[in-house]
């Protein structure tokens, strides 16, 4: 008989329990965070329009980063996060 100790790590259950789920994206307050990556400039504007048309948001917040790599300024993030129910984030290329 060989008894093996599992090497696997599991996410903290407490953190998972604090997560909330969004029942629907329709009619909620939405925030867009976008990195302004050059090749997405044409796409992102169309994407926002199409999404807003589909989801009829109560309010829209837009936070456009000026740097592809760095995260959004923490104060700006907190400010926008307080004003929305969920985010759609544009990352990478």
């Amino acid at each position, binding site marked *: 008989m060989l008894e093996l*100790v599992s090497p*696997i790590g599991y996410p903290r259950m407490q953190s998972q329990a604090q997560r909330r789920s969004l029942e629907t994206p329709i009619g909620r307050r939405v925030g867009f965070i976008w990195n302004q990556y050059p090749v997405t400039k044409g796409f992102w504007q169309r994407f926002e329009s199409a999404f807003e048309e589909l989801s009829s948001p109560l309010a829209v917040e837009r936070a456009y980063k000026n740097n592809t*790599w760095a*995260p959004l300024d923490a104060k700006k993030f907190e400010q926008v996060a307080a004003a929305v129910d969920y985010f759609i984030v544009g990352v990478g290329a």
Partner: protein
Amino acid sequence: MHKTAMAQKAEVHRLESADEFTEFVYEHGWTDGLPVFPPTRKVVGEMLEYLRRDPEEVLGTIFPADGEATIENIVANCAMAGCLPQYAPVVLAAVEALVDPEFPINTTQSTGSASIFTLVSGPVVNDLKFHTREWIFGPNGGRANATIGRAIRLILWNIGRAHPGKLIKGTMGHPTAWSYCIGEERELAPWGPMHTDFGIDAADSAVTVMKAGEHSQLAVPINTVGLNECITLLARGIGRVGLSTSGGQRGYIYVINPTLAQAFAQAGYTRNQLRAAIAERARKYSYDWQNDQKQGAAAPFPDPYTKTPSERPMFVAPVTPDEIHVAVGGGQAPQMGQCVSISSRSSVGKPMVAKKIRFPA
């Protein structure tokens, strides 16, 4: 860091015989592809006994799955890598660096496929018999080098669940990611350990964990061109296009062989003076291809040997001494200085984090 937090005990799996082990680990995704050793209760228990720490103590969570890194599951990965119990404190210090909020572990999982480089320095290098000379970056038969490096990779794999195509999206990967750990040479090094750059006492042992990008070997023929020119050659290694592309925090580790280090020391250079001399001649070039915070001034790239010159300007930025770290290691070669430069860049956090190794009392 959640050093006082406690987690549940690790699961225990039972197999009828050792013959089933190899297929079991592949079926359960416990390995990144290379063979591993069984993390048996006996082996794991011996390591825990050596450490004398609570197996359920949590050091933090490992990105991207945010799996809890407990003493017990870290040790299970050490056992799978083939570590001796005495290696475990080194691995624990490396994990402390990985979970440090200053370390940009999240950006190591991006398309750039950075790997984790670990440099061990101080008395522990000799105590654990690291192989520090010929083929220092391996393979070299050094158990400490290979298995500590493997343990760190398996921790990223099993605790962080850094599985390509699933939670990580690196496009190419890197052969160093299998195991990327060295010990810094002590007897032949003319200067103190590299970890003093981070405020850790020279008499202590430490690990420096780096988000590593490019690994380049530079040959600098001391006897042919002289030491002064060698500094220029080392500095040019940083300026190579593509070494690291843009703004943010940068860091470079130069691992120079003992011959070269001794030549610099005999010429009167301290380690810090060498860092400053390299920085003085180094420039970082960034190609203007993305929307980021460029460092330096935009300039045409005047390369007379390029048949089709670049259509876009380059950004040329100075390099500062604190971005450069010099360690000693590798084989001796009377006429040839050898250097491996490892680069790092990160838009957030620090490119590398050093931690003192804490041994059982």
